[in-house]
């Protein structure tokens, strides 16, 4: 892989750079070769190997050029398929260039080939050919006379030599040769061995031998005569005749060969005729090949032209399109979001200006993009800020998409609606109401408004919804608003605000005002009415007869009783409306409860006390707390007296004291439970309001006063019914007594746990219902060390532990 990588680098760095100059050199070389081939076609006296070498070199050069062009074409096709920038334009330019060059080249080629074909054909003429043949025949005829003479002379010599014995033949042969005028005379014996030979050339060692045809002719008894071209320019007449007459060709007979020279002039003329004849014949034979050769040379030139044209077209297209390709690549980069690209401007023509404009455009787009990014960041920050604000609102916020699905919520909304946020994301309000049935009032109030077109954009609908959550009944001031339709998201926003406490406070304040006015306006005339009634009774009762006296007695008694009752009621009102100064002291609630219960000992309905056995310090006004205990015990006893006790159980009232932990805060808890019929369900949430009573003779102020006093002590009071089983809804204290109560009413009071060493605000006005004993400004308290604070915080927890231990060890203390 490394090798391949390095090879790729070498190719990119060197070969790709070197190919164009090499190609140019090859083209020049090919042009030279073409010229040389053309020259060699015209010249006869050329080196033997030159032509084929030139052709081979040309073929190599053209192959190289073809490979270069093929490489360009393959790369172009690959780029074209890949959709590389500039590939289509390159292809079009190359095709245009090639078309422009190849058409004239092909036309020239066609006409050149036609011209060669016709031109070479026109060299030959039938008459010339015939004349040449005739000249050759004439030359042959010119030798006929000499040949006949030579034949006669040879036959005569053969006759002379017939009678000569073998040894003397060699001696006579030279004389016979001289007589006949032969140049050379040889006798061949059996197996073609030379028997004797005579020649006028003394330097010739080996006599010329006839070919097998001539010998076989002679041995067959026939005479042979023919022209012998010899080796050089001198032709000779060869005559072969049998020497021994009557013998068959069995190889044993002898033959005589005589060679006669031809005159030099005749030789010269015949050679000239033959040379011309040969040249013309060879031209006729070669004319087809010659046409092919010229066509081949032209084809080489055509190939060279075309390949050079294509190659130059590629080079030109590359040079021309380089800036356009860069522009296309740049545009693609910009389209993919890369604005940092800056193209080099290295030319001053129109394309250079185009590149310059592109760079300017890219720079502007980059700036605009940066601004957009900054704006986006600002928008994101604002959105995050808004998100943070929404999360920290005291109101619960829900945003819904146009199709009614929840897109966003803050943590308060889950707390207010007693739901978990993971259940509501992407749900519609109806779906949430199906999951959480206690939210049905919200759906009833707003469900139909979230339908498309029901709520116009910008419109707001407000409603007060009462739901029952984990922390009891809540009154939510709910508001739905349709977001503007041109907003990015549109949809709705739902805002919930917990107004339970506010409404309760308003209601309490109103009742206090009513009570104060009633007490003031009614109490004043009551005493004169009572005095007047007593005076009428005292003065008139003795003076009247029996009947009127009885009427007067009953009437005045009724007036006096009713006025007394009215006074009691007005006093209670006054008590409710009164805001006396309370004196807070640390006292043991457990002990106080025991004291109050002692007063009820021996009553019809027993009062039990379940104590933890440890002091429960609270910061309270003992008198007010006593009133609370009296109110609660009396209330329970009266309720059970009037309404009875369900089942066969004996009525009883139980007061439990203990500690309660809630959200890291330790509270002292007092629970008053009876085993009566309990509170009516529809009255539980209004139980502590004035004039709310289940008894016919009740004023409805007892529990209202209890609540008022408890809230003055920064405590809280809760009412509930004891349902089947020992279900401790409001208290953590497991109680054996409670376990027996099947039904009944229960009121729980929780007061802040008082730490003994905290400074006491002895003359505090009525405390805020929400204020806690541990919540006070720093200025209100003396400086305390962190260790002190830690020990103070740990004190209730230690108490808890001790309580748990005690519960495990001992039974509850039942008193009363």
């Amino acid at each position: 892989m490394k090798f391949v990588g390095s090879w790729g680098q070498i190719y990119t760095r060197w070969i790709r750079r070197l190919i164009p100059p090499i190609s140019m050199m090859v083209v020049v070389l090919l042009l030279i070769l073409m010229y040389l081939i053309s020259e060699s076609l015209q010249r006869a006296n050329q080196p033997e190997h030159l032509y084929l070498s030139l052709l081979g070199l040309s073929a190599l050069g053209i192959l190289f050029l073809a490979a270069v062009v093929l490489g360009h074409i393959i790369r172009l096709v690959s780029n074209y398929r890949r959709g590389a920038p500039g590939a289509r334009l390159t292809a079009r330019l190359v095709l245009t260039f090639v078309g422009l060059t190849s058409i004239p080249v092909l036309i020239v080629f066609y006409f050149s080939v036609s011209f060669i074909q016709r031109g070479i054909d026109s060299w030959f003429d039938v008459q010339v050919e015939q004349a040449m043949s005739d000249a050759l025949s004439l030359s042959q005829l010119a030798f006929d006379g000499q040949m006949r003479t030579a034949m006669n002379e040879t036959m005569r010599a053969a006759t002379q030599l017939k009678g000569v014995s073998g040894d003397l033949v060699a001696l006579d042969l030279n004389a016979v040769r001289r007589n006949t005028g032969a140049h050379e005379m040889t006798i061949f014996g059996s197996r073609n061995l030379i028997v004797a030979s005579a020649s006028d050339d003394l330097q010739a060692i080996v006599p010329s031998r006839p070919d097998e045809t001539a010998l076989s002719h002679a041995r067959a008894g026939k005479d042979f005569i023919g022209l012998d071209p010899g080796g050089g320019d001198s032709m000779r007449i060869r005559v072969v005749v049998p020497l021994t007459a009557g013998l068959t060709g069995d190889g044993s007979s002898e033959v005589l060969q005589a060679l006669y020279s031809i005159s030099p002039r005749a030789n010269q003329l015949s050679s000239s005729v033959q040379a011309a004849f040969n040249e013309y014949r060879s031209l006729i034979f070669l004319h087809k090949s010659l046409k092919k050769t010229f066509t081949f040379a032209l084809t080489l030139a055509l190939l060279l032209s075309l390949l050079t044209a294509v190659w130059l077209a590629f080079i030109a297209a590359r040079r021309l399109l380089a800036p356009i390709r860069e522009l296309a690549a740049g545009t693609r980069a910009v389209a993919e979001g890369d604005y940092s690209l800056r193209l080099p401007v290295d030319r001053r023509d129109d394309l250079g200006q185009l590149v310059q404009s592109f760079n300017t455009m890219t720079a502007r787009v980059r700036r605009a993009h940066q601004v957009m990014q900054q704006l986006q960041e600002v928008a994101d920050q604002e959105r995050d800020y808004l998100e943070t604000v929404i999360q920290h609102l005291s109101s619960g916020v829900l945003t819904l998409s146009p199709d009614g699905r929840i897109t966003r919520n803050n943590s308060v909304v889950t707390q207010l609606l007693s739901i978990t946020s993971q259940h509501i994301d992407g749900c519609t309000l109806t779906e949430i109401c199906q999951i959480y049935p206690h939210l049905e009032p919200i759906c009833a109030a707003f469900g139909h408004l979230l339908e498309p077109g029901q709520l116009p954009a910008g419109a707001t609908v407000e409603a007060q919804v009462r739901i029952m959550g984990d922390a009891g009944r809540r009154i939510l001031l709910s508001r739905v608003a349709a977001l503007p339709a041109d907003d990015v998201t549109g949809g709705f926003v739902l805002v919930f605000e917990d107004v339970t406490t506010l409404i309760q406070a308003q209601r309490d304040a109103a009742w206090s005002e009513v009570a104060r006015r009633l007490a003031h306006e009614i109490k004043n005339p009551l005493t004169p009415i009572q005095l007047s009634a007593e005076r009428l009774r005292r003065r008139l009762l003795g003076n009247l007869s029996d009947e009127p006296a009885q009427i007067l007695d009953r009437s005045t008694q009724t007036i006096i009783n009713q006025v007394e009752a009215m006074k009691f009621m007005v006093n209670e009102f006054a008590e409710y409306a009164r805001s006396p100064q309370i004196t807070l002291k640390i006292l043991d609630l457990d002990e106080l409860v025991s004291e109050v219960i002692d007063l009820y000992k021996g009553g019809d309905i027993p009062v039990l006390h379940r104590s933890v056995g440890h002091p429960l310090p609270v910061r309270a006004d003992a008198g007010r707390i006593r009133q609370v205990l009296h109110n609660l015990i009396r209330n329970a006893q009266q309720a059970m007296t009037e309404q009875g006790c369900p089942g066969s159980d004996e009525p009883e009232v139980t007061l439990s004291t203990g500690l309660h932990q809630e959200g890291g805060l330790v509270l002292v808890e007092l629970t008053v439970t009876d085993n009566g019929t309990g509170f009516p369900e529809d009255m539980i949430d209004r139980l502590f309001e004035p004039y709310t009573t289940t008894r016919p003779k009740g004023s409805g102020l007892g529990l209202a006063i209890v609540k008022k006093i408890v809230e003055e002590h920064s405590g809280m009071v809760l009412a509930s019914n004891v349902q089947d089983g020992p279900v401790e809804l409001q208290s953590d204290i497991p109680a054996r007594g409670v376990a027996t109560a099947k039904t009944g009413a229960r009121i729980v009071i929780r007061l802040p746990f008082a730490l003994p060493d905290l400074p006491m605000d002895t003359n505090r006005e009525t405390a805020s219902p929400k204020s806690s004993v541990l919540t006070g400004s720093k200025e209100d308290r003396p400086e305390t060390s962190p260790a002190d604070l830690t020990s103070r915080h740990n004190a209730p927890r230690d108490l808890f532990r001790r309580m748990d231990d005690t519960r495990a060890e001992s039974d509850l203390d039942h008193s009363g």
Partner: protein
Amino acid sequence: MGSFMLCWKKTDRAADRNSAAASALSVFLLLALVLLCAQAHASSANIQRAHAEIREGVVYLDVDLKLVLDKEMIDAMRNAIPINLSMISVIESPRDWWLPNEIASDQRRYRLEFHALSKTWLVTDTLEHEARSFSTLDGALHSLERIRAWPVTTAKHLEGRGPLVGRVRMVLDVNKLPLPLRFPALFDSRWSLNSAWFSWTVPTVGAADRGDDL
């Protein structure tokens, strides 16, 4: 009817395929025939025997070969185009993993031509400048097919060379052909008169074979 038409169409298509196959086959056969004919008319040179012996310190080689000339080639000679043939003999010492080392080489060149005036065939040994005329082409070819006592090298030159291998071949000298024939002759089987290399046994050089002993 529909099925018939379908079948008919199928038959038609099948017929088309058959005809296409038939034409392809005929083209193939034609090509094969052309090639076969070309092969039948091709020229060839095959060395059938080569024997060497040392006489008087000289290595003499006798070669028998078979020459077949194509009609085109004979036609060319009848039209005054001579054929030049070279007989090449090489004696080599083989080497492992490398080309053999050439110890000695010799060449004999012949020209075969037709003499129009005398209507004879002329065989010329161009190196020895010896010419012999023949009445027939067969006679001329026969003289070329039988090479006798060709002195390829001296025995002394081969002494102490280890095992040697002799090779001999005949080639057509294309560069001596007229220009228009040179390029076609390279690829035309009618002009392929180059024989394959024929190996012959190089005789072992004995003491008596050394020329200096004589």
